[in-house]
C-alpha cells in the first residue's frame, strides 16, 4: 500500500532525524537557498544571540561587515564596552521587527517611524527620543546602553546619532547578507509618534510616563508586515541583498503582558517563528536558519541552556554555528574559532610613535536590575 509518507526523506521523520540520532548530530537544516563565502559581506543585528553569530563568523574568517568603527585611539576592550563592533553598526540590541523597520526609516528619514516631529493635540511634538541619564547626561532612547556615562550634551548625542545613521545607511547599502535574529514581540514606545524603544523608559534612562508611553505586544500580522516593509526598503537600497532570519531561543527576562513569563515566552517565540516562516515562504531572498530549534529541541535535553535556564551555552552556540557554516558556507569547522576583534581602522601606532618621541552584553538584562 502506498501513501505520501512512504517516500519521504529521513529528515521528515522524528525517529530517524531526532529520536535515534546523537544529540550533536541532529541537523534540522534541510537546505540553504543561497551560500556565503569569505568575500561575502555579512551584516548582523538582533540581540544577544546575534552577537554570538557575529563572534563566530569573525572567528572563522568571514567578512563580518562593521561600518561603525571606534576611533583607533580606543582600545578593543573599550570599543566593545561602548558597543562598537558588536553588530555591524552601533545600534545596540534590536529586539523587535518594529525596531528594525524603524531603524531603516530613521536612517533614510522616511515614513512615519522616522522619529521626526508629529502633530500632537497641542501642536507639533518631538519624539521622546532623548532621555536624561545619570548626572544630567543624555541617553539616546533608541540605543540606551551604547554610551556608558551618557552623552555630555544634546548636541553631542545628535552628532553621534547622525554619524551612526550614516553608518547604518552604508551597512544596508554595502551588505551582501543581513542576518537578523528576531527576539521579542513586546515593546514600549512613544504614544504620539509611535516610535518604539529597545527598553522601557526608566530602565536605562528617561522617565516612564503612562500618559506618554505605551506598551504593545506585536501580533503575528504586525511582525510579518514589519518584516515585509523592511525587506522592500532594503531591496530598494540594495537589490542584491539577501536576508537570513533566525529566532532567538533565549526566554524573556520579564514580560509586561500580564501573562506568566513562561507563557509570554511561548507566545513571543511562536509569533516570531511564524513570521519568519511566512517571510521565507514568500520572499526568494529571505531564508530561515533554525537556530531556535537547535537550541530548544528536546534532543539536547536542556543542556544547551546554562544554569539560569536562559543563557545559551557555548556548546549550543557551537552546534548552531557548525550547522550554519556547513549549510550556508560549505565548511565543516573542526576546531573552535579563535575570537578576533573586528578589523580595526588602523593600528594605534600614532600614539606609540608620539609616546616614543616624548562578554556578550545583553541590555535586556537591565530589566533584572530595576533602577531605584
Amino acid at each position, binding site marked *: 500500500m502506498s501513501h505520501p509518507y512512504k517516500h519521504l526523506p529521513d529528515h521528515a521523520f522524528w525517529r530517524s532525524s531526532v529520536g535515534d540520532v546523537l544529540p550533536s548530530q541532529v541537523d534540522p537544516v534541510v537546505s540553504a537557498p543561497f551560500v556565503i563565502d569569505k568575500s561575502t559581506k555579512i551584516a548582523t543585528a538582533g540581540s544577544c544571540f546575534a552577537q554570538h553569530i557575529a563572534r563566530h563568523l569573525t572567528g572563522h574568517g568571514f567578512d563580518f561587515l562593521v561600518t561603525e568603527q*571606534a*576611533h*583607533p*585611539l*580606543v*582600545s578593543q*576592550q*573599550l570599543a566593545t*564596552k*561602548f558597543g562598537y563592533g558588536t553588530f555591524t553598526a552601533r545600534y545596540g540590541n534590536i529586539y523587535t521587527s518594529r525596531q528594525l523597520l524603524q531603524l531603516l526609516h530613521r536612517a533614510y528619514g522616511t515614513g512615519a517611524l522616522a522619529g521626526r516631529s508629529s502633530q500632537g493635540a497641542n501642536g507639533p511634538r518631538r519624539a521622546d527620543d532623548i532621555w536624561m541619564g545619570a548626572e544630567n*547626561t543624555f541617553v539616546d532612547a533608541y540605543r540606551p546602553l551604547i*554610551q*556608558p*556615562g*551618557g*552623552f*555630555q*550634551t544634546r*548636541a*553631542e548625542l545628535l*552628532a*553621534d546619532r547622525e*554619524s551612526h545613521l550614516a553608518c547604518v545607511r552604508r551597512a544596508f547599502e554595502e551588505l551582501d547578507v543581513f542576518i537578523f535574529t528576531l527576539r521579542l514581540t513586546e515593546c514600549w514606545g512613544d504614544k504620539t509618534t509611535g516610535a518604539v524603544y529597545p527598553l522601557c523608559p526608566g530602565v536605562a534612562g528617561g522617565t516612564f510616563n503612562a500618559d506618554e508611553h505605551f506598551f504593545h505586544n506585536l501580533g503575528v500580522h504586525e511582525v510579518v508586515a514589519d518584516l515585509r516593509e523592511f525587506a522592500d526598503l532594503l531591496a530598494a537600497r540594495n537589490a542584491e541583498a539577501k536576508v537570513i532570519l533566525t529566532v532567538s531561543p533565549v526566554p524573556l527576562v520579564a514580560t509586561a503582558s500580564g501573562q506568566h513569563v513562561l507563557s509570554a515566552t511561548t507566545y513571543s517565540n511562536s509569533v516570531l517563528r511564524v513570521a519568519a516562516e511566512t517571510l521565507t515562504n514568500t520572499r526568494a531572498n529571505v531564508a530561515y536558519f533554525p537556530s531556535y530549534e537547535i537550541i530548544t529541541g528536546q534532543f539536547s535535553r536542556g543542556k544547551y541552556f546554562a544554569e539560569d535556564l536562559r543563557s545559551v551555552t557555548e556548546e549550543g552556540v557551537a552546534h548552531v554555528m557548525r550547522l550554519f557554516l556547513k549549510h550556508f558556507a560549505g565548511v565543516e569547522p573542526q576546531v573552535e574559532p579563535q575570537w578576533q576583534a573586528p578589523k580595526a*581602522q*588602523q593600528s594605534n601606532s*600614532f*600614539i606609540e*610613535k*608620539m*609616546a616614543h*618621541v*616624548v562578554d556578550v552584553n545583553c541590555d535586556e538584562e537591565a530589566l533584572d536590575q530595576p533602577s531605584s
Partner: protein
Amino acid sequence: MQDQRAKIHVIGHSHIAALGAAASIREEGGDRFAFFELQKPPYKPAISGGVVNPALLERITAILESIENPAFALSIGGAFHSVVALANHPSPYYVVGPWLGYDPGSEQLIPFSLMREVMREKMSWQLEVIRTIADVLPQRVINLQPPPPLPDAEFIKESPGVYQEVIEAHGVMPAEVRYTVWRIQSDLFEEACRENDIEFLHAPPATVDDRGFLAREAWRADPTHGNAWYGEQVLQQVERYFETRKRAS
C-alpha cells in the same frame, strides 16, 4: 636630623624643568627646592611592569628618614595630553567637553565619556605612580596641575620641538580639542589625588588666559611646557601653600 624644614622636593617629568629654571635664577630661596627628574636615570622609567621604580621610592624613603616633616610636590607625566592631542591624528577626530565649544568638520566624533575612558586607560601608569607615592608619603604632598595648552597653533608650528615631524605631517590639533583633552587629563589627575588625599593645585590664575589656555607671558619656544616665569609663579604658589599649611598646623 638635618634642619631642612623649608625644603620642598619636586618630583616629576618634563614640566618641572620650568620650575627648576625659575629656582636656578632666583637670587634668594632657589635652594628651597630640590628636583627629581623622572625622565632621567636612575628614576627612568618611573614605572615598569606595573611596579614603580624602586630607586624613586628609596629616595623618598631616605628623605623621610633624614628630614623632619618634608614637603613634596608631584608633576607626574603631565605632558601626556600632548602625546594624544598636540598634533592631528592620522584619523582625524574631535571631542567636545563642557568647557569650550567646537565646530567640527568631517572629523570623527569621540564622545566625551568615551574619551575620558580612553585617557583613563592610557594614563594608568601615571595614576599608579601617584597612588604608590601617596602610599609612601603620609603627609605634605601636593600635585601640580600641568600647564594648560597653548591657544596659538601658529606658534606651535613655529616652535614644534620634538613634535616637529608629526606636526609637519599632520598639523596642529584645533585648540578647543587640545584644551578638552588636557582638561580630561587634569580632571583624572585631580580625581586620583582626591582618592589618595593629595592636594591638587591648579595652575596659578595669572598663568591662565580668559579662555583657560596658557597665558602669553608663560610661553617659551616649545609647544607644551611653560617658561621660567611660569615656573616662578608655580614655585610661589607652592611656597604659599606650604606656608599656609604650616601656619594652620
